[in-house]
């Protein structure tokens, strides 16, 4: 199963639970904001999306991932707007029978997300100026 959410405000992680009997692996990734972008100090990032297309692409990607790898669930939340240093911008939870496939699926999903989902970062500098982050990876 796939759940995809693009949200404003802090990310509440998907619940972890002991109720499954066929998932030997639960893998959770939190992508967090660091205090530097390309060597420059920042005080926050601001995430921008192509509204509509971002969620559609992310959903397609999540479904592609579940087809490509033998995993049972992929849950994903991406935060929009201003995200402070240390806070989570991307939260992904994958449930699978085996560890190996969960790890491979996580790696591929995030790699592809950074290639095809129309979401961008703006760096907020200590003086308050806001510029597009030119990071391409």
């Amino acid at each position, binding site marked *: 199963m796939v759940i995809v959410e693009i949200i404003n405000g802090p990310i509440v992680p998907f619940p972890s639970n002991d109720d499954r009997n066929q998932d030997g692996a639960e893998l959770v990734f939190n*992508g967090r904001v660091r205090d530097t972008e390309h060597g420059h100090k920042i005080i926050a990032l601001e*995430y*921008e999306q*192509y509204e*509509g*297309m*971002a969620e*559609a692409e992310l959903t397609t990607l999540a479904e592609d991932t579940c087809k490509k790898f033998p995993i049972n669930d992929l849950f994903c939340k*991406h935060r929009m707007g201003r995200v402070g240093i240390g806070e989570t*911008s*991307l939260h992904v939870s994958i449930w699978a029978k085996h560890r190996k496939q969960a790890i491979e699926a996580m790696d591929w999903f*995030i790699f592809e*997300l*950074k*290639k*095809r*989902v*129309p*979401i*961008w*970062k*703006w760096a907020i500098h200590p003086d308050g100026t806001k*510029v*597009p*982050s*030119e*990071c*391409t990876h």
Partner: protein
Amino acid sequence: MKIKVKCFSQVKYALGENEIILEMETGSTTLGLEKIIREKADGKLDGVSLRVAVNQQYQSEETILTDGDEVAFIPPVQGG
């Protein structure tokens, strides 16, 4: 015909607009529109690779536009 251009990230920054409505001739294509956008940016998009989406779908080839289309020139994405 009327074409709506959505601007994000470096395109928004270069043009200072979230959205532009352009009047174009019938038969115009995404390539022609990209040229107009790059000219408007006055050099600020030089060296920036742009993919194109029409009505929120990536297009891998030059595409003929129709009245009311929503077009976005998509700079390298940065989610995560």
